[in-house]
């Protein structure tokens, strides 16, 4: 978990704007990131396809909202071959 602290409480409209930015910003284009407003920070969670994308999300959000404290819990999705199959009659 990475915590970026800033001044002032997160605002509900900031939360909405971040959610939309994550989808609509062409450098991010992520619809699978959850933005949750907590008492001390805005928490970003979800999974992305590469470490680069995770870094880009944090960079863009911090750049656009420098005063909003952000907690990041974004993972990179595993790509290993399956070890089991599902049999369906």
């Amino acid at each position, binding site marked *: 978990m990475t915590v970026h602290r800033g001044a002032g409480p997160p605002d509900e409209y900031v939360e909405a704007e971040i959610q939309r930015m994550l989808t609509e910003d*062409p450098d991010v*284009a992520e*619809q*699978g990131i*959850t933005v949750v407003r907590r008492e001390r920070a805005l928490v970003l969670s*979800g*999974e992305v*396809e*590469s470490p*680069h*994308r995770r870094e880009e999300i944090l960079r863009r959000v911090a750049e656009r909202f420098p005063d909003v404290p952000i907690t990041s819990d974004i993972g990179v*999705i*595993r*790509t*290993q*071959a*399956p*070890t*089991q*199959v*599902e*049999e*369906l*009659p």
Partner: protein
Amino acid sequence: MVIRIAAVGDVHLDEDVVGRFRPALEELPEHADALLLAGDLTRHGTESEARCVAQEFGGLGVPVVTVLGNHDHQCDQVPQVVRVLEDAGITVLEGNGVVLECAGGRLGIAGVKGFGGGFAGRCASDFGEPEMKSFVRTTTDSADRLAEALRSLDCDVLVALTHYSPVPDTLAGEPLEIYPFLGAYQLGQAIDSAPTALALHGHAHAGTERGTTPGGVRVRNVAHPVIKQAYSVFHLGDHLDQHQVSRIGSSGMERSWS
């Protein structure tokens, strides 16, 4: 005889992801007769991203069949994306189907992207402003084309492939408020109008794997963030008398365990 289907959706390829799936994909022909991709192959639907998809998922040694997702429409380059995928030998379905000759029989796959609208009792209606009517008609047109494609295929095992979900079951984990943007019951109705054995979809990154249509057809959400592996493998066949999970060993299938 068994037909073995590998599937994944929402891989969102761009240059930064190329190569991540390939090691697992190299093993795929040992374990599956075909690979089905449930849309959102790219981030923005550009021709260059489609080339990344072609590089990663092309030349696998088994047929690869896909539908597009909403991300693949973002840059309005669908014809270019489709051409790049088809040049790589990937079959792109939208309101049509394909029948693959597999060792275990003929696998029929009908596909559409699908669209939103929501689920029975809590869905958008073809009423009011032109924008709302256009939204709902996009969904019903898509569902109608899926139904027609499913019923047109002559095969032993029939699979429906969509990006949007046909049922709410596999959305569990997503906020209820966004269900109407994740799928539509009309897709389920289309799936139930044909002897469909399995329905595969993606789009709902925070959803869950398993569900069934009101008509009893198994539905699987194979979005990559949901399955958390390069692809899932499903075995379909009449000989199986109960749901089972089997292990894939280094020398192939090991004994099933339920």
